[in-house]
């Protein structure tokens, strides 16, 4: 167990909720300077409630949050505003403000009695806008920008507050994939080069797994798991966290699949080498139950076959196809109406050696007359 002193931010038995009713109890999370902590969990689990309590918008119902060695409750509003800045889901409706004006409000804790920005303050504003690549938006009316642009303006605003820690509530929700990646990569750069600590909530599990140093999973009335992405994304945990009853989630690839079509398999897919996942998904859309094989368990098509096929014939990675597996696959072809083989070509040298079994399977399918090039 690490000593608390090593952490820039940690909570001890923190209990949060509204109107005195605890929602999430005994939260224990921690992060060091320059680390990124992400909260994940189902809708309504209380991620926003935790974040609101951390940024002192909501009074904690118990326990303590410690920032830079001091209980957060003891910090004055001004001290806190120089250490911590936020990007919230709450929309702002500023009147007659350009994007630069909105960004410049981040300098508030540093300006004097009348809030007039100095030359240095404006330089910090410009630098923050450069960091998030919104210089061309500077003189645009904030209310006339797109959601994605607004989000970046708000990030620039938070950065020019020069915080040690930044708290973001679902910052990527309204962004398209290009801006999602850009946004998170800015955060990553800031955390690595400037030692900025980040706490945020994300809906995108795949991105959470890539960017986070620590992940906290909020479920029910507690933080169910807290640890590194490797500790969190263990097999079967994510469906449990989200209470998934339909479909599947692959912890390794982050792929989501809709529920498999049940019933006796009608189509057999000779699959492999990543050629067949699209075919599996097409069969799922057309509501045709199917079987797939023979797949090595390290094949790109293997996770989707497991998620979508009624039966999957597989062999362990880097091993010869066993006679048993070949027999099983032949049996399935016998019971199916048709066979698809996206995996080409099997007739040439590629179909020898390790893949000899597959060539044999294709030949068997041809002789049965069930081979098709199109879906039935």
């Amino acid at each position, binding site marked *: 167990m690490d000593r608390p002193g090593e952490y820039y931010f940690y909570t001890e038995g923190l209990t949060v909720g509204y109107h005195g009713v605890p929602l999430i109890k005994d939260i224990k999370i921690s992060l060091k300077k320059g680390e990124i902590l992400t909260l994940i969990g189902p809708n309504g689990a209380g991620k926003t409630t935790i974040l609101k309590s951390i*940024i002192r918008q909501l009074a904690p119902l118990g326990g303590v949050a410690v920032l830079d060695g001091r209980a957060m409750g003891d910090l004055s509003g001004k001290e806190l505003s120089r250490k911590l800045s936020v990007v919230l889901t*709450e*929309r702002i409706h500023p*009147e*007659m403000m350009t994007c630069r004006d*909105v960004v410049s*409000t981040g300098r*508030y804790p540093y300006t004097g009695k009348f*809030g007039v920005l100095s030359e240095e303050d404006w330089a910090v504003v410009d630098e923050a806008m450069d960091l998030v690549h919104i210089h061309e938006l500077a003189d645009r009316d904030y209310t006339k920008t797109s959601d994605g642009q607004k989000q970046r303006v708000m990030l620039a605003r938070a950065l020019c*507050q020069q915080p040690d820690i930044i708290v973001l509530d679902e910052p990527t929700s309204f962004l398209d994939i290009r801006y999602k990646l850009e946004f998170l990569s800015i955060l990553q750069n800031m955390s690595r080069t400037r030692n900025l600590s980040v706490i945020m909530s994300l809906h995108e599990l795949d991105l959470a797994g890539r960017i986070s140093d620590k992940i906290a999973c909020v479920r029910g009335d507690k933080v169910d798991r807290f640890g590194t992405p490797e500790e969190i994304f263990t097999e079967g945990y994510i469906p449990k966290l989200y209470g998934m009853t339909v479909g599947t989630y692959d912890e390794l690839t982050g792929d989501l699949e809709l529920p498999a079509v049940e019933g006796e398999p009608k189509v057999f897919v000779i699959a492999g080498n990543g050629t067949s996942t699209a075919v599996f998904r097409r069969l799922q859309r057309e509501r045709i139950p199917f079987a797939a094989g023979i797949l090595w368990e390290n094949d790109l098509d293997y996770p989707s076959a497991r998620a979508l096929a009624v039966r999957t014939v597989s062999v362990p990675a880097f091993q010869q196809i066993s006679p048993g597996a070949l027999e099983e696959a032949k049996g399935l072809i016998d019971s199916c109406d048709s066979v698809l083989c996206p995996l080409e070509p099997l007739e040439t040298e590629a179909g020898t050696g390790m893949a000899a079994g597959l060539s044999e399977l294709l030949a068997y399918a041809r002789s049965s007359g069930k081979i098709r090039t199109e879906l039935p």
Partner: protein
Amino acid sequence: MRNITGGRNARKKGRYWAAFLVLAVLVLIFMVLSICIGTVNIPVSEIPGILGKNGSDDTYTDIVMGIRFPRAAAAGILGGGLALSGYLLQTFFHNPIAGPFTLGISSGAKLVVALVMVASLGNALRLSSWVMIVAAFVGAMICMGFVILMSKVMDQMSMLIVSGVMIGYICSAITDFVVTFADDADIVNLHNWSKGSFSGMTWDNVLIMAIVVGITAICVFLMSKPISAYQMGEAYAKNMGLNVQVFWILLVLLSSVLSACVTAFAGPVSFVGIAVPHLVKNLFGTAKPILMIPACFLGGAAFCLFCDLLARTMFAPTELSISTVTAVFGAPVVIYIMIHRKKERTE
């Protein structure tokens, strides 16, 4: 890059100064016109003499120093206070058509003042201006409290205004009732006052309103930084280190003092609180509180001087109530704001 920023800031600054100049000149022009125009027209050239008191025409001096100048001064001070009060309420409720009149605060102040007046008529007491202000403040705070409660229940801003207008009607109805049945000769004055008017101002009145409005306006100006934080919404304001609860209380108190002071002296004056901040915002092309606060004050002063001039002279010797004139110029602005906002929503 710094040069670009510098150039842009200089250009903006130029616009701000020009806008301030326009407002100041308007105040001055309407002030002079208010003093000169009337049943007896006084040439502008006489004014320096009258103000300097070096042996000008005595009738002129009486008219100017006894009637028109204090009235114009009152219109300027109260108009400025009213516009500022409206600006604060719009900030507080995040609602562009909030104002002391639309939220029923003026009417609440009017009701309590009328009750105090009627109650004291029998006692043959001369009510001091201070008592009137305190009575108006009590009325304003009661209505303000009610509107704040309503705003917690209703999250739709149009409904807030509707409830404010309803409160205003209720208070006005009770005031009319009280005024109608308080049967006394002095009630004629009360009747005029309850419709809103800048007439009958004395220098004593002007001094007191200058003190009250002046101190309050300075307090408001000192709050321009927290107001700018609050414009970003409550959550962000909190993160910037603003103590929102204290800020709310100050905002409510200051706006109530301003609208109470206006009501105590001039009765309810409509639309200034909404129209002026909006017009000023467009004139300056910004909503920065540090500019808006002095600009609203000047704008309100110019607007009320202009409207009072019309109220007094258009159908002379009959005098219109001030709200009649402010409504003619103010109501279209409100309609414009509503349409404009609707358009922005649907875009």
